[in-house]
């Protein structure tokens, strides 16, 4: 598993990468009440704003960590956004992306480096 400075996690699953947000991010965001996910089949570039997460008070954007194609989104989150608070590292993944370059995710931090970052 890899981690971005934007508090996303990335997990390889065959030739796809599953992306979600970390426990730390979900607790910082507070009660999540709305999520807008990208369209399946969308072609995205690294740093595109592709997910919107809203808490009671504020909206935050999640950036695409990779270049690639969105293959699957987690529809469950649209009806139950609070799942992101309950299980951010598991059931509440956001999308699966088919990266243009399977090496791209290796640029990101490993768990030890991420744990150090959030101190």
């Amino acid at each position, binding site marked *: 598993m890899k981690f971005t400075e934007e508090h996303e996690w990335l997990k390889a699953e065959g030739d796809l990468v599953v992306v979600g947000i970390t426990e730390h991010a979900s607790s910082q965001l507070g009660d999540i009440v709305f999520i807008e996910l990208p369209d399946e089949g969308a072609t995205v570039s690294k740093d595109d704003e592709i997910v919107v997460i809203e808490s*009671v008070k504020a909206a935050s954007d999640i950036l695409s960590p990779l270049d690639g194609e969105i293959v699957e989104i987690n529809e469950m989150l649209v009806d139950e956004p609070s799942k992101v608070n309950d299980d951010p590292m598991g059931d509440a993944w956001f999308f699966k992306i088919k990266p243009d370059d399977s090496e791209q995710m290796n640029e990101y931090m490993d768990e030890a480096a991420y744990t150090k970052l959030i101190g």
Partner: protein
Amino acid sequence: MSDKLMHTPLNKLHQNNNARMTAFAGYDMPLQYVNGIMSEHLHTRSQAGLFDVSHMGQIVLRGNDFNQVAEALETLIPMEVKTLQVDRQRYGFFTNSTGGILDDFMFSNRGDHIYMVVNASRKEDDIKHLREHLEPLGVTVKNLENRALIALQGPASEKVLSEHYPKISDMQFMDVSTIPIAGAECWISRSGYTGEDGFEISIPNKAAENVANTLLKHELVELVGLGARDSLRLEAGLCLYGQDIDIKTSPIAAGLKWAMQKSRLIGGQQEGNFPGANKILSEIENGTEYKLVGLIPIGKAPIRSNTQLFCKSLVSQKVGWVTSGIFSPVKKCPIAMGYLKSEFSTKGTMIHAEVRGKMLEVEVTSVPFVKKSFKK
């Protein structure tokens, strides 16, 4: 974040309760505690929430007697002050010469003086404004930096306070009194900013932490931060200065005519004679271009402040903007307030809000979004 944020007398209490702090109006304030905004909000609606609002300005106006001070204050605000009974409180706002709002506040008749609570972000300017205009009329303006302010809000507030002062149940909505809590001289009003029954309690700085901790010992009381304070006031349809009203807003467009007593309006015994009176009184007669309304998006996406609003049938026509928007913890849907051109402000009108390039359907409604429950 500035390293020069001011601290309220309850700062240590916030730290001890693992608050997530935020900078607000120059103060280091609790945004939320461990349970989070949703839970703190719902707790206030069902039990009792304790808020530190010591950042707000507490001001005392003194002269020869109440009547003199009241007359002086009436030159700056479109409210009746002289008729306010002893130990009663009223909502008011300062207007400026162009008919905008300088700040909104609560003021009360404390027998021989007036006590005011003003917004934190405006207190310095308010004090300057009061001194400039009231000192020549023989009124002194004192900024009470020696007192903290907490709010205890929610249906269980009376029960909690009655354990310290049984006669609290005699107080009605907008009554004011001086009572002892945990040995401290507290100035208490039965009012607040959540739409719930509740109290605001002014406490000497030195006693503030002890009084707050004493109230927090009650099983029905939990700490609530500024995050839930904002969502609670918006559900109650209450304006926030700097967001829904400001120096450029007309109190008439903002729906605040109810706060102006008849005697100050056209044909009244004390018609006009407050800053911007011509403009404001003509707006009452002729209406305003925009009106502050409640907004409920049809979908699940919240619409936040500064979201632009458009006509549904003619999408290129801009008809207004959002001033406050949240997800309502009680209604479980997004709610907002904003200004709409008057012809679009009728309840039930459908309009569009532009959110991230998409047009979302929004229904115009009236406020409050949740029923207020004051003790009257």
